[in-house]
């Protein structure tokens, strides 16, 4: 682990909660830690909980979407969960496309969505 954002493992799913300010250095370490964890643990899914973020600007959105696309290149689906109502409204109004990630209301639904995605693949 390089960074300060913890990554938990539940079966073959990685769960992480972004609860700190994503400065450049923090963001880079976060992405590297996630990719390491995917590689080492053969994770099939990644859930990123952002319920603790009261603001997602295009900088943070880009980091989240990029992380999803990186994980995707390693065969791992990413689900973003817990986006607050005002954050969703703001991102859409700005015209930011969150390509590369799926979304769920909360952690439970995020995990359920990952299972569904895996069933589809089989």
């Amino acid at each position, binding site marked *: 682990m390089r960074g300060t954002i913890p990554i938990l493992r539940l079966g073959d799913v990685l769960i992480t909660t972004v609860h700190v300010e994503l400065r450049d250095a923090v963001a880079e370490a976060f992405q590297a830690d996630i990719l390491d964890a995917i590689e080492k643990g053969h994770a099939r899914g990644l859930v990123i909980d952002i319920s603790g973020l009261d603001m997602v600007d295009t900088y943070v959105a880009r980091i989240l979407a990029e992380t999803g696309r990186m994980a995707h290149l390693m065969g791992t689906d990413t689900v973003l969960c817990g986006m607050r109502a005002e954050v969703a409204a703001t991102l859409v109004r700005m*015209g930011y496309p969150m390509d590369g990630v799926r979304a769920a209301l909360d952690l439970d639904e995020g995990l359920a969505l990952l299972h569904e995605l895996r069933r589809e693949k089989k």
Partner: protein
Amino acid sequence: MLIASEDDVILVRKAVRALAESHGFDTFATAALTTATSELTRNVWVYARRGQVLIEEVTNADRTGIRVTFRDEGPGIADIPRVLAGGFSTARSMGLGVSGSRRLVDAFDLQSEPGRGTTVEIVKWKTT
């Protein structure tokens, strides 16, 4: 407030959020103003490395609003219409920062001259 580091981007955003909340802006208006502030402050940091942000309370008849002015003496913007249209970026972003911010606020004014710097002024009114 002076912008001279990445941490200042966070400090400015927190100051704007605190002011919006203290004036009773709802969560949507607060998020919109805070996000636009974050975008424009980050632009000062990324493109100019140094600048000033002024946060003011404004009133118009019975309306209360917050005006934030971002000023830098950085490289400036050569093609303003293109930047306002979005999808254009010379640094590491999607190029939606400026055009997106404009959609989040009630008033948006951008003045820029290549080589002289950029000034952006935004106003968000409290919804009643």
